[in-house]
Each structure stands twice: as structure tokens, then as C-alpha cells.
């Protein structure tokens, strides 16, 4: 049962990544792209968790921790950059 569910979940997460990537490329303003990037990081955290179940390697959770940390720092950095005056109409 678990392998079937894992395949379904991989497919759903791939579709979610694709949709978030559409918003990343189309986003009319820079904050839209930042929001899409943060959602992509969140999806990748879920991907890594599912992959840890798939392979049985629990050390992959450290990767998830690092991805979540860097996504948070990237969001904070982008927001500071925007408030200090980046490109207004990207």
C-alpha cells in the first residue's frame, strides 16, 4: 500500500511544483515570484520527506531541515531587498 501511495504523492507534488513554477515565470511583480519560490521550497521539503520514506534513509530529513532554513533566510533577504528599493516593476 505504501509504494502505491508514494507514487501518487510523487505525482501530486510534481504537478504542484509545475504550477508553482508557472507562477514563478509569469508572476507580474517580484513579490509574486518570491511567494512562488517559498512555495517551491515548501514542496521540496515535502518531496524530501516522501523520498526518505521511499528509500528508507532517515538521514534525508537533515536535508529537509536545511532546505527549510535556507528558504526562510531567502524570503527574509528578498523582503529586505524589496523594502530597501529593488526594481519596482519587474
Amino acid at each position, binding site marked *: 500500500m505504501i509504494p502505491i501511495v508514494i507514487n501518487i504523492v510523487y505525482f*501530486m507534488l510534481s504537478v504542484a511544483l509545475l504550477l*508553482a513554477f508557472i507562477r514563478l515565470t509569469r508572476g507580474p*511583480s517580484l513579490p*509574486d515570484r518570491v511567494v512562488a519560490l517559498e*512555495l517551491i521550497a*515548501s514542496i521540496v521539503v515535502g518531496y524530501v*520527506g516522501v523520498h526518505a520514506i521511499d528509500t528508507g534513509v532517515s538521514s534525508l530529513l537533515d536535508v529537509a531541515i536545511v532546505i527549510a532554513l535556507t528558504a526562510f533566510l531567502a524570503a527574509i533577504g528578498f*523582503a529586505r531587498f524589496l523594502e530597501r528599493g529593488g526594481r519596482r516593476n519587474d
Partner: protein
Amino acid sequence: MIDLVVAICLIAGASFMLLAAVGIVRLPDLPTRMHASTKAGAMGAMFTMAGVAFYFTDSVVSARALAIVVFILITSPVAAHVIGRAGYFMGTSLWDGTVKDELRENYDPETHKLSSGYEGSPESVTPPPESDPPDDR
């Protein structure tokens, strides 16, 4: 039995993240997109981590999954707040159907000063500060 719990957690997490992605594509402006992506995305990641914790049934792995969940729970609202604030100050246009934007009337984006909206009304006239009572000692 534990497989069923793991399957439900994984499917729920993937469904939340898929809904977040659909929302981020379909919704019309920045705050509504953030409304879809930040909450549902964090919830999906947390459900997935719950599934990982149930699958391995090891205290070390469960502690690590719990650490990820707590970390997401702390950082996701902070990041969403900061991005929303920056996006609002950049002057991104809101959706045409926006019903209410009280911040636009009362907030000065140059000086970052927030007024209450009641400055001109009689209720806002504050009485002058009373002089200090005489010291009886």
C-alpha cells in the same frame, strides 16, 4: 494499521500542497496568493513530516521530524508577514474586487506612520495632561 496512518498523512500533505499550488496560479493578486500558498504549503509540509515520523517509528527520526514541524510553524508566518509587508509597500495593485483596504487611507508609506482615522473628530481631542498633584509629604 500504521501504514494506513502514514498513507493518510502523505495524501493529506500532498493534497494541501497541490491546493496551494492551484491557488497560487488561479488567484488574482499578491495577498490572495499568499493566503493560498503560505498556510496550505506549511500545512502540507507538516502533514508530510507527520507521515515520516509515523513511518519510521524511531524516536530520533520522530524528534527530527518534530523539529522540522516546529521550525516551519515558527518561520512560515514570519516570512509571510515580511513578504506581504514588502509587497504592500512596493505598491502592488490589489484585485479590482477588493472590498476593503483600510491601510491605504490611514498609512503614510513615506514616513511609515499609521493614523487612527479619527484625528479630526471630537473624540480624538485629548485633554491636556493634568498637572502633578501637590506633594503632601
